[in-house]
């Protein structure tokens, strides 16, 4: 996973609520067995069927921050939704509320998800609609999103923040505690099921 410290780019306003992972990337695009190359499925139905869809507008072609409506990422657990956004050039998604699994996956895939108060999300959407070239800075060190003269702070737990700042592999961190896992396994009840004979 790439480390994330601070990112400055332009933002695209996605004024829709309940954007489910089937919209972010439909199931037929999940058949690839590699970890990259998912940009062709990103919001493909809306990109195909809606000429005015925000990501069809040339002024947002280079946006790297997606500013979405509430309950972004509902539905399936497919991490491909994170990968598709990353492959499509996004480093950050900002919303007032995310679905749990999508958000959790983002902390593993290196896509930063930032929760801002609904009014601030709205203000940022207004700002990047008024000026699509507006630079937006997402600063994980200071835990702030900054645009024009606005500063909006966000919460993130210290552990996840540290892991993202360092770009650390979760599995490697867990492997430091193999002794604890061994001890736990030794104490498990013997009647717990096993899949192999």
């Amino acid at each position, binding site marked *: 996973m790439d480390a994330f410290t601070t990112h400055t780019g332009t933002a695209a306003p996605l004024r829709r609520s309940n954007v489910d992972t089937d919209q972010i990337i439909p199931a037929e695009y999940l058949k690839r067995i590699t970890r990259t190359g998912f940009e062709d499925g990103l919001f493909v139905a809306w990109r195909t069927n809606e000429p005015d869809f925000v990501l069809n507008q040339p002024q947002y072609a280079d946006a790297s921050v997606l500013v979405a409506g509430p309950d972004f990422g509902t539905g399936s657990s497919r991490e491909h939704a994170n990968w598709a956004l990353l492959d499509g050039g996004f480093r950050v998604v900002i919303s007032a509320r995310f679905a749990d699994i999508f958000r959790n996956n983002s902390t593993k895939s290196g896509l930063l998800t930032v929760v801002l108060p609904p009014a601030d999300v709205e203000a940022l959407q207004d700002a990047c609609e008024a000026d699509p070239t507006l630079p937006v800075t997402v600063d994980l060190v200071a835990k702030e999103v900054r645009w024009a003269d606005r500063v909006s702070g966000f919460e993130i737990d210290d552990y996840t923040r540290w892991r993202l700042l360092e770009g650390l592999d979760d599995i490697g961190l867990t492997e430091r505690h193999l002794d604890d896992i061994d001890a736990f396994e030794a104490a498990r009840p013997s009647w717990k099921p096993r899949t*192999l004979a």
Partner: protein
Amino acid sequence: MGQTLAQKVYEQHVVRRTEGEPDLLYIDLHLVHEVTSPQAFDGLRAAGRTVRRPDLTMSTEDHNVPTTNLLAPIADPVSRAQVEALRTNTAEFGIRQAPMGTRDQGIVHVIGPQLGLTQPGMTIVCGDSHTSTHGAFGALAFGIGTSEVEHVLATQTLTQRPAKQMSVRVDGELPVGVSAKDLILAVIAEIGTGGGQGHVIEYRGSAVQGLSMESRMTICNMSIEAGARAGLIAPDETTFAYLAGREHAPTGEDWDAAVAAWRELRTDDDAVFDREVVIDAASLTPYVTWGTNPGQGLPIGAAVPDPASFADESDRAAAESALAYMGLTAGTPLRDISVDTVFLGSCTNGRIEDLRVAAELLRGQHVAADTRMLVVPGSVFVKQQAEEEGLDAVFTAAGAEWRGAGCSMCLGMNPDQLAPGERSASTSNRNFQGRQGKGGRTHLVSPAVAAATAITGKLTAPADLVPAGA
């Protein structure tokens, strides 16, 4: 202060707890399918890691598998490559397989309970959001992404933080013709698709206790549609009776020890929930969805809502966009909506009891002229069981298509898809735009409503039907 059921199961699995870090949680069972695992196995290989506990891991082929021409190779080369990658990966790491056509193959959330691998008090994960299904046994079960699949393969643990606790209490008795599916659709309509966010939901109350295990699975399955990662129900005699004698259920002294431990798995009287929802079972009727998220549902006697009737601006916008996508007009009675396709199946409603309910309604009846009905058992075992009971003959005599096992039209990763503009009544779990095929329109329904709808060609409650021969 007492603990909830979910808190008890969680605490029993904490491997390591340190201030300022997430807990390390042990995973008792890891279920693997072909879609969300290939990148995880590649990750293991790239890092020189192996699978820590293949004996706590089970794989199956479900999302991509076709439901016709079962003996031929998968026609779609990309689907075939994904299934073959699963076979290669699981063979390399010594993981049990359930290849297409074998008795154990089927939807991952159908085969776990069927084999007796899903038991009370366990932690169960899978790279699939409907893993919440297994909560019906009093297990803490939730979906994970591919990075976490790799983490569990490598370490048999996950990093986790305790969730908030929600109680959904349903007292009373469900009216005749009203099922677990109607109940959970009503719950989601009540609390919304984000209502359970950050929570584990415990379903409680006399109406829940009165349900069969398969009905309980239907309810827990759709916890994710309410925004909760997990939903669970305290194990009881119904649970133990379901498990007894299954392939992986404990036996002899082990059974006695297990049941003694399972009896402890209930929420303490003084436990505190962060949120409580109460529903009167007697007030429920068959529910159907009219929109493009599972929270957009109403009793079947209602009409398509007017977007202007929603107070919240974002709900109003969502309703407007849903009606446009669904091709519906506000004020149309839901019973007047004609469907092209009826889909009976999925991890929500693809088990034997679901097939029995639908077959009972279809016996001696016929699927409407312009409607097609697909019946897709959740597993090969369910298919065989249904055939032993003669249900396949009932379905085919009624003009329905009797198919092979898999996820099928729930998400259309195989050839079972809606054409653009086609409308379905589906016993699956998601009515998202395009979920069942590009441009397809989905109404979520119970198995009984699905069968009744197949007969009339319009959304229909079972009570609306004229009995066969009458």
